[in-house]
């Protein structure tokens, strides 16, 4: 697990985003144990205090939960899991719309292009398997 961090956004925010992506992709399953704070710091090459901060925030957002002295786990709350996926999709769509609007392309043309490109890309992904 390696993540490329940028130096301008808070690292803990980038860590949370990474977790959300993994959850949306299904790489982290509901109820799955998360690495300990120290393991995470070591895997992502970040400061242990930052890993701690990320876990604290995710706990508050309900992305992970901890019972007693057990290791933290990914939430099993369907509503939260669904909202994570939606949030990521909406973010990507907004970003896309932002860049499309600035060059004034009609929606139909864009949608057609997106469809074509997507087919090519998923085709490539199939071939490489």
């Amino acid at each position, binding site marked *: 697990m390696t993540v490329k*961090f940028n*130096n*301008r*956004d*808070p*690292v*803990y*925010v980038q860590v949370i985003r990474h977790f959300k992506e993994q959850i949306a992709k299904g790489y982290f399953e509901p109820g799955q144990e998360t690495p300990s704070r*120290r393991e995470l*710091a*070591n895997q*992502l*090459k*970040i*400061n*242990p*205090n*930052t890993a701690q*901060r990320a876990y604290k925030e995710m706990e508050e957002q309900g992305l992970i939960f901890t019972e007693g002295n057990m290791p933290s786990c990914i939430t099993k709350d369907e509503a939260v899991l669904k909202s994570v996926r939606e949030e990521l999709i909406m973010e990507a769509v907004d970003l896309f719309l932002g860049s499309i609007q600035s060059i004034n392309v009609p929606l139909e043309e864009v949608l057609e292009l997106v469809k074509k490109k997507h087919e090519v890309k998923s085709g490539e992904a199939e071939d490489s398997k």
Partner: protein
Amino acid sequence: MIEVKNVKKNYGRKQVLKGLSFTAEKGEITCLIGVNGVGKTTIMKAIMALTPINSGEILIDGEKIRKESFEKITFIPDTITMLPQMKICEAFAFMADFYKNWNFQRAEELLQFFKLDPTERIANLSKGNTAKVNMLLGLALDADYLLMDEPFSGIDIFSREQITEVFTSHLIEERGVIITTHEISDIEHLIDKAVLIDNGEVIKEFSVEEMRENEGKSVVDIMWEVYQR
């Protein structure tokens, strides 16, 4: 906590530290940043009482440095201080003789981590491996505070990766670390606090994560702002 309060230091008529103050917390990595010759190494030597200061005060957990403090704080200089004809294992024995808090088990662990051969003579080691042994000798002490002077200078990217790995592991955790560097970009997301120094003074002291959160700026951004004035 290490507190450096209004420290002034002259070398002859030249004033190198002009009333410099900052603090470094335990459990955090504090990075002293500045171009060559601004007094970074002098600060570390002053904290270790290796060089006298002209005025000001330096406190370690609220106390002035004394003989017992050297079991609590350790300095890793930018060059190795062991005799070159010593083998690594002999250097270990030397450290064990001098320090009560020498942790032999941790030293062994670090040897494996850095993939070093204990029977090798220090004089025969490559530059990168010498730097690793130097760092190992400091890290294997059960000290609360570690001062590292330019741990990354003259080291290739693979060794650098290994050393950064040390920073995210239990070898550093819970300890207070002060490091100096002029190559910050590689380790930006590893440090807790940055202290920018110029001309013997602290020009900015900030938490890097707070800076990213509140102003969306990286340490390098701040350096541009501050040093270009």
